[in-house]
């Protein structure tokens, strides 16, 4: 398995790793096939994601997609976050092979679960 420098950088220097103590939206999802896990805690205010933190367990693509996701969504609007696709996450992860797309899918699924559970998010699963 050959990974890009960017991919390795995310793996060894994950962005926004951890949990938010004052999160008002969160979700944890598991890939039922391989058992990889991703959890996301968000602080939402004024229609935006003010802060995002992730925790991940599993293969390197899952860890990297968690890092990429948490970095991308911090500071953007909830509407923008809802429009994110797994292709965008996979591209941002740079070096995610076609066989590892499930990691990007898990990231998007976790994001949408977190946003859907927040009462003021006013968002829909898509």
């Amino acid at each position, binding site marked *: 398995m050959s990974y890009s420098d960017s991919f390795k950088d995310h793996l*060894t220097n994950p962005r926004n*790793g951890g949990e938010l103590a004052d999160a008002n939206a969160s979700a944890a999802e598991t890939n039922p096939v*391989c058992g*990889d896990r991703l959890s996301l805690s968000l602080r939402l205010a004024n229609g935006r994601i003010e802060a995002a933190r992730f925790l*991940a*367990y599993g293969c390197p693509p899952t*860890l990297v997609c968690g890092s990429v996701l948490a970095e991308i969504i911090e500071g953007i609007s909830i509407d923008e976050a809802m429009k994110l696709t797994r292709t965008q996450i996979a591209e941002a992860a740079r070096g995610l092979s076609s066989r590892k797309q499930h990691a990007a899918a898990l990231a998007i699924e976790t994001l949408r679960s977190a946003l859907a559970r927040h009462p003021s998010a006013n968002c829909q699963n898509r």
Partner: protein
Amino acid sequence: MPIYLDHSATTPIDDRVFEAMLPYLRDKFGNASSVHQLGQDARAAVDKARRQVAALINARANEIVFTSGGTEANNLALTGICQAAQGHGRHIITSAIEHPSVRGVVDHLEKQGWSITRLPVYENGIVRVDDVRGALRDDTILVSVMMANNEIGTIQPVAEIGALVRAERARGRKHLWFHTDAVQAAGRISIDVEVIGCDLLSLSAHKIYAPKGTGTLFVRRGVRLFPQQIGGHQERERRAGTESVANIVAFGTAAELAESEMTQRSEHTMHLRNRFELNVQQQIPDIIFNGDREMRLPHVSNISFRYIEGEGLLIHLDMQGVAVSTGSACSSGTLEPSPVIKALGRNEELARGAIRFSFGKDNTDDEVDYAVDALSSAVSALRKISPLASATQSAEFGVT
């Protein structure tokens, strides 16, 4: 150069081995089957290497069949014996922790209608001889149990299994054979085919500081097996194909060095391994050593790191210049945790978090100490983003 702690995967070529093979890549390029002088020089070199490899395992030179590597040797052993002996039975006994080059052949034979008994190894990673005895049937024609495991290094009771097979044969079960895959054991512990009592034994050159591309199957005199490559008279009709003379010369030289330096290599790698494990134990919490701590090869340490997955740890270490390996693989969203670690009764998390460290004759104390520090920081970094660690430990990972 990275700090290489993956000697169970392959070893660097010893300078003396390299020098020995060089002439056969240049001036002495003859085909060992040719009648002219160049050919006869090549033949003499192959014959010498055959004696050297035979000496490593206390075999006769004419019991050595050169192959392209350990995988081919295992394929030839299992398929060759099964094809030759299938008229006497179609049952094979093997272990749950065999290398894929045995496991894959056995799986293939099973699909062809053979009956397979895969023996458990229990928490210590070692087959029990009583289980072998209990699995024997009237139609058993082959027992294949590795000498030492490739992931956890556990040494199997092959001499006891060999004695059992011989005793059964003495009682009239004439078509029962014993094969052992000694690829990982070679050069690390003593191998004596008379002590083991095996009929077939596999070796690989690149595990003992020779190049990739050559292996050996020991075939005891009188054992009949069908060749898997035909169309030539080489290797006494057991493996057709022009001999890879330079590689075979390298293998012979490496075998001779492995035999003469075995004690010092084993003592050195055991010292490094023990130093490594002691330091890891002191610096990193929540770890589990896999496999028996005594009955194992001197150069291997296999450790499961809780809460994290092995491949991420491997890449972390690689980024810090330390090369190791993991037995698990994830592809297409399907996780394949190490079957060896699973066979020990470990759960998915521990099987996924297992890393193999395998030391070599040229590693140093300083390299081991650096590797432990790199490992400690890598484990810590991965646990900081692990939901499993977060769920079981304090809230120290909380970020505001």
